[in-house]
């Protein structure tokens, strides 16, 4: 076919689109709705998954963890007795290979504050190594992160608010008068405390936005002096009995500690019923009797970027190669994906249901195009006969109809892409606020996002959804055209 012929055929197809304008508009609208919704849903799913994954790696697990095999098998029960020693040697080996590592001893227990009690997961960490490897450490809402060697503890913001620890963000008037203003010992301090808060119309107060760090520290110290930050950890130490294989000994333990910071990071798991305290302060009989034992070592490459998910050097295989024979057989190294089953289940479910919905919608709009083309071709049987009688080949006729259908798809796709992008802009910038749900479920709903679920741009999918929609609609013209072409020319000329 010559180029000019193709151009003529394309022009003919375009003009044919205008023959039933309403019909064309309705069909393109259907395509546009499907494409726009697909772009919106895909962008949203991508946005929350990208952010969740980054937040898991940056705030929760690092790129990989070393644990004993026995611990991993029961990891949901936090079996502290399945611990191991020799973390120092492993860390040294990892540092030499260009990896950061952070040892942890994880245990559960109950935290008693002056005002209440709550079950908690306690992470005994090395504050220096933890700060280098994970990113929640700078997200201290008030106070600071615990220092090595001290009985200090940092708690998640949700539990701090409920246990009445830290600086209350929105106290009620009565609570403010008794607990916060009551901490002031003289007039000057009382004036300072008052200046820290503004009164709201609903009988509560809120912390002034412009308060500086020094003022926060001062208020923290005032409140700490009242005993507000003094807490007690009640737990049972489980250890393997050296004399009786398989038996576990239990030792009841109470540990006094001072809350020095409240954590509010973008990953809800760090803000719920979780506390962090220095591992070196828990080694002896007055702590958790660790004697150098840890339950896990977190690993990330020293030069890892927060915005990039673990890959290349950070894959479990590469880390294992770097460790070589240093890893004892009872220990195993697993990537971050093995530790976040709840997120992957929630994400997979949303992914599948949303996509099924959109695909159903796509099917509907393609039946629409098929119907439109079927009618268009049927209606023009006589014309088709005429064109063929005048010397147009079958492939040229087919091309004309395919272009016509493709144009419906293309116009619909372009409009759909435009609308989809327009919806995406506010979704990327602002997102939808799910903080109420996050609070209701104590941050435990699979996704690792605290409040705003935002979309992300996915240019490849945006373009591809348009291309696929165009190709599919072009293809929908083929069956009815082939059928029309089977008719002898003389018959189609006589067709009524």
């Amino acid at each position, binding site marked *: 076919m010559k180029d000019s012929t193709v151009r003529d055929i394309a022009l003919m197809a375009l003009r044919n689109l205008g023959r*039933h304008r309403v019909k064309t508009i309705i069909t393109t609208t259907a395509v546009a709705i499907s494409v726009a919704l697909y772009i919106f849903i895909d962008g949203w799913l991508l946005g929350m998954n990208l952010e969740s994954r980054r937040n898991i790696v940056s705030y929760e697990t690092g790129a990989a963890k070393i644990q004993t095999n026995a611990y991993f098998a029961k990891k949901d029960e936090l079996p502290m007795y399945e611990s191991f020693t020799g973390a120092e040697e492993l860390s040294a080996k990892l540092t030499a290979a260009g990896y950061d590592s952070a040892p942890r001893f994880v245990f559960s227990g*109950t935290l008693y504050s002056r005002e209440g*009690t709550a079950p908690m997961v306690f992470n005994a960490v090395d504050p220096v190594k933890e700060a280098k490897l994970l990113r929640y450490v700078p997200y201290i809402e008030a106070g600071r992160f615990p220092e090595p060697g001290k009985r200090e503890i940092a708690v998640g913001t949700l539990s701090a608010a409920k246990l009445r620890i830290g600086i209350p963000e929105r106290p009620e008037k009565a609570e403010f008068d008794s607990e916060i203003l009551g901490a002031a010992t003289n007039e000057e301090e009382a004036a300072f405390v008052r200046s820290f808060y503004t009164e709201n119309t609903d009988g509560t107060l809120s912390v002034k936005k412009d308060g500086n760090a020094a003022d926060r520290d001062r208020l923290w110290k005032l409140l700490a002096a009242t005993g507000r930050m003094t807490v007690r950890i009640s737990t049972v130490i489980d250890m393997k009995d050296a004399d009786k294989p398989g038996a576990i000994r239990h030792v*009841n333990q109470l540990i006094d500690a001072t809350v020095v910071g409240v954590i509010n990071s973008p990953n809800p798991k760090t803000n719920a019923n979780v506390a962090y305290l220095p591992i070196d302060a828990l080694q002896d009989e007055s702590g958790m009797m660790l004697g150098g034992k840890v339950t896990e070592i977190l690993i990330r490459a020293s030069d890892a970027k927060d915005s990039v998910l673990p890959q290349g050097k950070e894959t479990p295989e590469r880390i294992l190669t770097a460790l070589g024979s240093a890893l004892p057989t009872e220990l195993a190294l697993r990537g971050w994906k093995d530790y976040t089953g709840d997120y992957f289940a*929630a994400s997979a479910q949303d992914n599948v249901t949303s996509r099924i919905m959109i695909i159903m*919608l796509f099917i509907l709009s393609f039946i629409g195009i098929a119907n439109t083309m*079927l009618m268009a071709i049927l209606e023009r049987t006589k014309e088709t006969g005429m064109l063929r009688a005048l010397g147009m080949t079958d492939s040229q006729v087919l091309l004309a109809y395919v272009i016509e259908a493709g144009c419906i798809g293309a116009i619909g796709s372009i409009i759909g892409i435009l609308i989809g992008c327009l919806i995406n802009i506010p979704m990327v910038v602002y997102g939808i606020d799910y903080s109420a749900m996050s609070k209701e479920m104590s941050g*435990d709903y699979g996704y690792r996002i605290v409040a705003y679920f935002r979309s992300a741009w996915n240019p490849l999918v945006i373009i591809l959804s348009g291309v696929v929609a165009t190709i599919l609609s072009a293809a929908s013209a083929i069956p009815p055209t082939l059928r029309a072409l089977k008719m002898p020319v003389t018959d189609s000329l006589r067709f009524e």
Partner: protein
Amino acid sequence: MKTNEQKNGGLSALMTIAYRNIWRNGRRTALCVTAIAIAVFFNIFMQAWMEGMIDGIEEVVRTYETGHVNIVAAGFERDKEYFPVQYPVADGRNAQELIDNIEKLPHVRAALPRITSYATLFDSTVKHALLWGIDVEKELKVNIFNLTDRDDGLKDGRYPKKGEAECAIGSILARKMGLKIGDKLPLKTVSAQFSDKYFNPTIVGVFEFDYRKYDEDVIIVPFDKLQKILVLGQGTQQLFVYADNASWSAAIKTDIGALVGKGNFVREWRDNYWVAMLQQSTFLYFIIFGVFQVVASFLIINTVLMVIHERIKEIGMMGALGMTRREIVSVFFFEAVYLSIFGALIGCAVGGAASYIGSLFPLDLEFFTGGGMKDMPISSTIFIKFSPGIVAGGFVFGVAVSAACTLIPSLKSAFIEPVEALRR
């Protein structure tokens, strides 16, 4: 003037013409019917799924979280996540007296006292659990604890007796701790006077409610025993009121509010965060269903437009032979309605069958949550809900939306001049 008889005869004649017309192009009809069927099927199946989920959540909320109406002290409500026992209902008024008064109210079936508090476990790898103090005998008259098998939920042994130092524990908890019936379960809890209280009940039963939070965390103890241990006097921490019918809860809530007075927090099950949220999302799904139905109706709209264009000569003929504009419009409108009815019927059949088959197979929620979301009040096994109401609703919705969409293009036929049309 036409008589009524003629009018009726006219209508059925129009419908007959419309019905015959849909078979003039089989493929087109097939496509339209398929599109409507897909939309209706989707709507019915999605709704069956959603309602199954909502029913599951509402039932858990009514059984475990709030009853039909829930009464707690304002202080308890503020710190409810940690189940404080320092704030008894109505300032520690005699619970039995309160219950008797509430049970005298109209529509109230029963008022049940309950206490929940945290327990720290000793000699165990599991560190904490929830103590659930309930009047077992009375509870079982009102509530069905196992939501899947619809029975009392007892797997082994029996429930603890009144006043005895006995307990029943959840099946997952029993497995994790490696305990069985006859074992002791030493624990510590904090009383209303902020003092530590030690308790060493004997396990007499293992229950399985198929509600993960309870199977994993809860120790059931007799209400009166826990009341004594926690030094609550004659008071109770919470009251769960059950009505003859869940829909009476709003009225009962008002009555109880007046009865217990200030300083207490009365809520009905509809106030629960999850129930309220799902009610909101129902609206969202309604919009999604609407979009589906409208996109499917686009096909019928197009068909009607094409049909009018194609049969323009016939319209002229019909007009010339004395059919009014209203009658001509009706013919095209009925044709579209037939298409949507056939589509909706097929969609209902397929959607109804799919949701009926789905309703026979329990779905394990673990698969969807991967072990997370323990704070969501939902039974571990959910069923897709099959109900004729959903199928009928899907049919009516499908036909109504499609009919409304096709009315406008059908009207187009009314603007055609018979004389002009005949000449085309």
